[in-house]
């Protein structure tokens, strides 16, 4: 089996991200704290099936978002995201 085949993307994290955010986050634009690249959360590369979710920057591989579910807690490390812009669903 090729390891590369185990790489998914931020689309797959859409469900768990809705436990953190009211709105869909896959279309949100995230800026990597490592290299400054900006792109949709859906295009981040997802690793770490089973133990937790690790979303890495497709440009520099920095882990921008890490999520682990432990007993009674959802633990989230957002330190790799410098900035998020979230498409608004507010009617104005």
């Amino acid at each position: 089996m090729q390891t590369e085949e185990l790489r998914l993307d931020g689309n797959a994290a859409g469900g768990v991200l809705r436990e953190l955010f009211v709105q869909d986050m896959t279309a949100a634009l995230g800026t990597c704290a490592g290299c400054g690249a900006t792109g949709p959360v859906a295009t981040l590369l997802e690793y770490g099936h089973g133990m937790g979710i690790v979303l890495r920057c497709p440009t520099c591989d920095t882990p921008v978002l890490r999520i682990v579910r432990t007993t009674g807690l959802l633990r989230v490390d957002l330190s790799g995201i410098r900035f998020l812009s979230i498409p608004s669903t507010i009617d104005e």
Partner: protein
Amino acid sequence: MADKPFIARGFHGRRAAAPPGRLPPGQYETRDFPVLSAGPTPHTSLTAWDFTIRGADDASPSVRWSWDELQALPHETPTVDIHCVTKWSKFDTKWEGVSVDTLLDAARAAGVANGAFVLAYCDGGYTTNLPLADVTGGKAWVAFGYDGAPLAPEHGGPARLLVPHLYFWKSAKWVRGLTLLPNDEPGFWEQLGYHDRGDPWREQRYRGDP
């Protein structure tokens, strides 16, 4: 709903029965070798590869082995059961590597500052922390062979840590060295709530588990 999951009729997963006493609690046996990675597979050439043991203090000396120097050390061929925290266990896996005792003896002789904990560090940025007592006394190896062949990159080749009596995330893939630390310092998964020790027989999956 989230508190009381719905039982799916006739769902058992792909778990097989295993001999009693051999599976830690909550584990099931697999005959595959599942690949779990927290990042892309690094490809470090053997000429660029080395393994270093260093102290926490910058003033401490360090010891370094090139690939050839590591290969020249006495090899051991442990056959062990491995247990992944994602609940699969695999029996009788056959490895080839150098005992961590051998490396730590050399480090002590070279005057590397001792510590009660180690932090393994790896190509790709992965880290994991272990008590020193769990990588000494014939319990841990730097492994570069699996099942009679060089360790494949997806399983951590050229070399990984092998600490089979702890959950397998402690057996860091693509390992490049150990830092000896006076105090425990959480690694990649431990920062996110995984257990600092990770004994499968005590089900030490998450921080706070007994």
